[in-house]
């Protein structure tokens, strides 16, 4: 019991003496505390087994908006009766006019009075058939309204009848649910009420003042806290979870010895498509799929333009090309890049300026790409992609698979397989599948391949193998965070950002 007494907060102590009061409001009055504080303290006391709270739900029937009005002006059927009382017979039209009832009220009143046989309808006229006595007697509905509010469980059968009648009509009644809380002090509680609870030497919160002198705290008791209780949430600063994931991928590349490539989001069609051997009539180059800007971007290197033209039209070094007339104008159209592969193309071209033996290396890119889409749960117009290339004269297909295996292992995908794929700029091409243990299927992860000679010869100047692979990123983030809707990634809902877990990889 001592432990419990030591755990009482000042407010709890304040209300303990009044626990035997019948009404909560009385406790509030006596302790001079507001209701919320008292209710919270009572709950704490219940947790400490000092008392038991009984909550009873009650349904109280009271007047609705129309009910309040009718209580003041009388029910419409009474008003109609009053008019009829003097005239006895009236046409429907006149009756409505004189009783000043609305269309609805009038209809309802006629119905009610007919059912009670107080009036008759004949040839469009209302005839009063009620006796004097019937006229002076208050109806059950009227009596019911006068007695409101009433608790539903306490209704008499007559009141129940009136309730049903009135409930059929609009907004006359209103039912409210209220909670009635009563409390019962336990035997432990009674003992505590009879004990000395105001101990002078109890320390509440420890503050600077207390710490000033040793005697302030030496030999004193610290009030015991409920350490299991809830505390308010803390909001801290945090990086956006997508950026946390991007940093993780960046780290993987760096650990594997790759250098970061960086570049513009607005690219000419030349770098985004032509340099990557995507024919000019390829569907991806239609307005339907790609964002175009009202600006042209020109490639200055005339020699490069000429080589790319030849490559598309007739091919290079043993290639047949696409067999059409390549237009320089088409290549000038600027687009929002559709893949980071355009950065790889720039990199190869940059390396072509170096002596042949220096045209080697390992590079990666990480960034946003764009496609012209409407937005839904699985589509967006911006998406993250990461991509790596390895350039070296001695590379081969087996080594591409080796890199892929290593990269995906680092990313946390152990069970993967490689299947044939198609991309306009790689040959052979590979698709990386990952085994989904729950769905028991192979899912598509990323694409890879060795750049075609139609890419490397014009851009790099030599037919050195360039291994390349790329990975869309949004799905991986969604999978990690169990997010089902792509739109959740960039919603910037602060509640979501505050509560979301860190990227723990």
């Amino acid at each position, binding site marked *: 019991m001592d432990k419990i007494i030591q755990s009482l907060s000042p407010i709890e102590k304040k209300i303990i003496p009044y626990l035997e009061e019948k009404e909560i409001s009385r406790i509030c009055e006596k302790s001079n505390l507001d209701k919320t504080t008292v209710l919270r303290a009572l709950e704490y006391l219940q947790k400490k087994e000092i008392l038991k709270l009984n909550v009873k739900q009650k349904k109280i029937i009271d007047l609705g908006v129309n009910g309040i009005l009718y209580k003041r002006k009388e029910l419409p059927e009474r008003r109609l009766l009053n008019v009829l009382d003097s005239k006895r017979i009236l046409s429907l039209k006149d009756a409505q006019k004189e009783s000043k009832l609305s269309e609805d009220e009038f209809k309802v009143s006629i119905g009610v009075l007919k059912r009670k046989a107080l009036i008759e309808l004949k040839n469009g006229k209302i005839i009063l058939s009620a006796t004097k006595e019937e006229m002076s007697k208050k109806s059950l509905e009227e009596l019911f309204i006068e007695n409101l509010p009433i608790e539903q469980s306490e209704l008499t059968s007559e009141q129940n009848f009136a309730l049903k009648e009135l409930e059929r009509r609009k907004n006359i009644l209103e039912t409210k649910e209220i909670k009635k809380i009563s409390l019962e002090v336990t035997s432990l509680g009674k003992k505590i009420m009879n004990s000395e609870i105001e101990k002078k030497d109890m320390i509440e919160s420890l503050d600077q003042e207390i710490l000033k002198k040793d005697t302030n705290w030496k030999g004193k008791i610290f009030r015991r806290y409920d350490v299991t209780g809830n505390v308010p949430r803390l*909001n*801290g*600063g*945090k990086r*956006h979870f997508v*950026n946390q994931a991007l940093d993780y991928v*960046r780290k993987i*590349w*760096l650990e594997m*010895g790759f*250098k*970061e*490539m*960086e570049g513009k*989001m*607005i690219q000419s069609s030349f770098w985004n498509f032509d340099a990557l051997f995507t024919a000019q*009539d390829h*569907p991806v180059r239609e*307005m339907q799929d790609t964002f175009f*800007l*009202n600006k042209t971007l020109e490639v200055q290197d005339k020699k490069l333009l000429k080589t790319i033209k030849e490559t598309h039209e007739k*091919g290079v070094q*043993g290639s*047949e090309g*696409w*067999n059409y007339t390549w237009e320089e104008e088409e290549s000038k159209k600027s687009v*929002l890049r559709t893949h980071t592969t355009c950065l790889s193309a720039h990199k190869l071209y940059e390396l072509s300026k170096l002596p042949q033996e220096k045209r*080697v290396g*390992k590079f990666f890119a990480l960034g*946003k790409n764009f496609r*012209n889409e409407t*937005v839904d749960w699985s589509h967006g*117009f*911006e998406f993250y992609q990461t991509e790596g290339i390895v350039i070296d004269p*001695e*590379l*081969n297909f*087996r080594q591409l*698979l080796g890199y892929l*295996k*290593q990269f995906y292992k680092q990313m946390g995908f152990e069970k993967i*397989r*490689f*299947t044939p794929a*198609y991309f306009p700029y790689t*040959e*052979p*091409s590979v698709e990386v*599948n990952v085994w989904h243990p729950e769905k028991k299927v192979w899912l598509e992860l990323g694409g890879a391949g*060795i750049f*075609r000679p*139609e890419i490397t010869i014009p851009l790099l100047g030599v037919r050195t*193998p360039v291994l390349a692979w790329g990975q869309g990123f949004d799905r991986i983030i969604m999978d990690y965070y169990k997010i089902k809707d792509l739109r959740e990634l*960039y919603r*910037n*809902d*602060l*509640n979501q*950002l*505050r509560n979301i877990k860190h990227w723990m990889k």
Partner: protein
Amino acid sequence: MANIKIPRKQFEKEIGKLDEKMQGRIALFGTPVESLTDSDLELEIFPNRPDLLSYHGFKRAFLAFLGKKTGLKDYKIHKPEKNYEVKIESSVKDVRPYTLCAIIKGLRLDDDKIKEIIDIQEKLHSTIGRKRKKVAIGIYPLDKIKLPITYKALEPDKIKFLPLESTREMSGLEILQRHPTGKEYAHLLSGKTKFPIFIDSDKKVLSMPPIINSENTGRVTDKTKEIFIECSGHDFKTLEKCLNILVTTFAEMGGSIYSMKINLKELRESPSLKATKKKISLKDTNKILGLDLSEKELRQNLEKMGHNYSKGEVEIASWRTDILHEIDLIEDIAIAYGYENFNPEIPKISTIGEEDKKETFKRKISEILTGIGFLETSNFHLISKEDQFKNMGVNEKQIKETLEILNSKTENDFLRKNLSSYIMKTFSKNSDSEYPQKIFETGRVFEEKEEIEESEKLAIGIAPGNFTDIKQVLEYLTKALDIKVEVKEMEEIPSHLIDGRVGEIIFNGNKIGHLGEVHPKILKNWKIKMPVSILEIDLGELFQKY
């Protein structure tokens, strides 16, 4: 992306049981299984293999891959019979200059095969046909037409026939204006003074390519035994490939191919299924794949992909569209060898990783700001006109140096010019979230000056926040970054800030940004009920210090 659906029963009867192993083989052939139900198998066909766009085309290639019927398949072409001729008139030259045609006889069609014919036609149209622009295909029951055929172009009002799905005869122009299919493809003939048509020797119109066939000659049914096929378009090579895919598919269905005489460039017989030849080097193959194949293995693998090999030369089927270079044959060898059989290896290339300096710098900024309780946001690079300008108090006339997207499918048709708009939007969307709200974002913005400029910016917002709050953050940040900036009164203030409470941020003598309190009228635009202070700086100058 094109998929094909194969009745499961047919596959299991003619190829093999669709167990897990078979599904694995299908994926490793390069045709991923999209779905498998009790009734159907659905496969994805990559755009480089239009020859697989029908069950019979797939079956031919896949059986070879399984080692059952390997090597280049040979089809007999029968000589043209009497009147098996298509006359091309010079009038088509400016509209749709080429056509290649063929006749198939001895077909026995059922519902599945008719469906397959309709399907492959549709799929070839949408893939290599580039939505009928490059190739349009017509298939007609031979008994409904009278050979020889003429291909010519006429003025639209001189063309009259009953188009498919119509109840009355229409003129060429009417078809483009009124008929649903006509309207869909009208753009392919726009600006042409004459429209192309195929007519038979009774002057009956067969079709008006690439739009629509005639109802009277247009339909293949289960009674049809003999058909006439035409492909028309602008690109001879694609037409040839397309026709070859079609006629060999019909041959796979049991039909016999008959050629026709056509005066295209010169008098020729169509189709020609002549294989193309390409050299392949065993050494190149082994080097690129990292394998040690013998010549015999090379030959076997090529045969599994439907090619023939002899003495360094490969014979390639006339219906394959994807072999542009030796490397494409090498990929075929890799597929036949089996991607699962390669032994992955990591080469010993020693390199040192290196992060882009700007990324390092941006991460440092993020660390500093999250350290003082700021949340990072991540918004789109595209933005709506309303968010970028109207809500920020910029009126229509003041819009300049902005990049607009020509064809956005969403309302976001501008490239963002700053990050402040999105900071305000974030506050606006989160008005029911707990305050204080302290947020920041780094990222790219776009402007059109003399050239297109892309630059990296940082924006910070505080709600509720005043000038002191935001200036404190600036000072904390610059101190942590060990840079010195000056704040001066700003002359030309941004439209969303309060005059007299805006500071211009100067670094190394250059204006790099501003900070200030947001004007109540802007807060009202965004329905934000808290005072907001905001900062935006260009990181370009700062990057250079590092």
